[in-house]
């Protein structure tokens, strides 16, 4: 954890980083397109229908899935409901404060949610029990336990991993009533969306910025890529800007790294 530094120290550090970047290196020794170590543990919360704890370097996120039976939204009577939420816990950083989510936490939750939803990872129609009356509501709540940069990707991997290992209670529909069956079923998936976050420092693009790099970088671009290499979601952040070429290059990097990380997650979770 770095304490707040003076402007002078900050500028010196930025110069040092800029110098390293021209050599294709970063402060922690990674090269520009290297992710930090990714660790995933699943099923550690037995009260949840699915759960995953993800470490991306020192950034830690834990996701839990809870399932309820509710009425569908009136405009989508034949679809289940998926709600992704994220919270930066006050224990995660000396700068996080208790209280309602601020704009940063709201953006985090909405961007991760969009990445899952827009990919059609989960077919919400499969989550309908009785049209217009009874559907599954899937809550995915993510808590950030330790902040060290790139919350977007860590949160997204936690959501994806917890959903991939979720088992929901099965219901039978009989005479317009539902009845819980003593069986648990997995969700079905057509694709696995992977979030890839890039940082821009000077004119260099890096992936998976840590907290120090985030403090020094000009702009952020998060792209989510599905199993077929389509871009399914994106969000630019930060006060800086990107050239048009950089955007195109970013999509290429996202496809490349997305494939890598998808393989890694499937391997850890033991999925085909």
């Amino acid at each position: 954890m770095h304490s707040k530094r003076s402007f002078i120290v900050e500028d010196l550090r930025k110069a040092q980083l800029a110098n390293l970047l021209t050599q294709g290196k970063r402060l922690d020794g990674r090269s520009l397109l290297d992710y930090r170590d990714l660790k995933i543990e699943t099923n550690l919360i037995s009260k949840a229908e699915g759960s995953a704890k993800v470490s991306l370097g020192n950034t830690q996120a834990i996701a839990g899935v809870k399932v309820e039976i509710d009425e569908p939204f009136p405009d989508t009577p034949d679809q289940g409901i998926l709600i992704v939420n994220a919270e930066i816990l006050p224990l995660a950083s000396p700068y996080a404060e208790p209280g309602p989510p601020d704009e940063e936490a709201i953006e985090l939750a909405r961007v991760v949610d969009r990445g899952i939803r827009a990919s059609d990872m989960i077919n919400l129609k499969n989550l309908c029990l009785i049209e217009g009356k009874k559907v599954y509501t899937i809550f995915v709540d993510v808590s950030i336990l330790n902040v060290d940069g790139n919350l977007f990707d860590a949160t997204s991997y936690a959501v994806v991993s917890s959903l991939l290992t979720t088992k929901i209670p099965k219901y039978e529909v009989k005479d317009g009533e539902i009845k819980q069956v003593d069986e648990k079923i997995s969700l079905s998936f057509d694709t696995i969306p992977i979030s890839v976050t890039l940082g821009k420092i000077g004119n260099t693009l890096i992936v998976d910025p840590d907290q120090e790099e985030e403090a020094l970088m000009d702009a952020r671009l998060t792209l989510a890529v599905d199993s077929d290499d389509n871009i399914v979601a994106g969000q630019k952040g930060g006060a800086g800007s990107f050239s048009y070429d950089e955007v195109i290059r970013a999509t290429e990097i996202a496809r490349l790294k997305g494939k890598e990380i998808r393989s890694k997650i499937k391997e850890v979770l033991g999925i085909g």
Partner: protein
Amino acid sequence: MKMGKLINEEGLRVDGRRVDELRPIKIEVGILKNADGSAYIEMGKNKIVVAVYGPKEVHPKHMSLPDKCLLRCRYHMSPFSTDVRKNPAPSRREIEISKVVKEALESALILYDYPRTAIEIYMEVLQSDGGSRCAAITAASVALSDAGINMRDLVVACAVGKADGMIILDPNDIEDKEGEADMPLAIMPNLNQLTLLQIEGKFTKEEFEKAFNLALEGCRKIHHIQKKALMLKYFGKVEE
């Protein structure tokens, strides 16, 4: 997103536009007396008022920044702006848009010119249509100019979408809801820099590049309208 008949056999959209055509746009400058700068935009059915206050004192004081200006941004929808009445309290969607719009505009502002002060940008959507965040950005950068704030460039925004499998420019409300994908973006047209990008929905590699270029083209057209509106306010006429 259902696959409706959003584009007919002649290649025309539900509102009669071609796929690469913008909706009608109108921009007025300096429409509010109290604000330091203001603008009004109509873009399709979007009707948005933007006011800029500042540079001004920061309240509360401890939030002021020693070396630069504090930028605040609020994107808000009027209760009567939507098909179903909207609760006046800010939604999570409005909070997220306020943030990305702030960052889209911040790229163009020279905040180090105004240390220890604040600039506040208020965007009120009186009537919403597809692309309201883009229209708001376009109008806000005009209002910032009207307030005399130092800027590197104007910021201009436009969305592209996907409907019936085709890339379309500047989606309206129906295309936004029933189409397959949406990508709003903002640029600084003279500096050729992108300051906002959001993507929701599937784009293949080829579709993405086509859509991206179409959006840039749309932005350049809107930029022309921004300049005309400012000229009209400050020089009373527009030379074509």
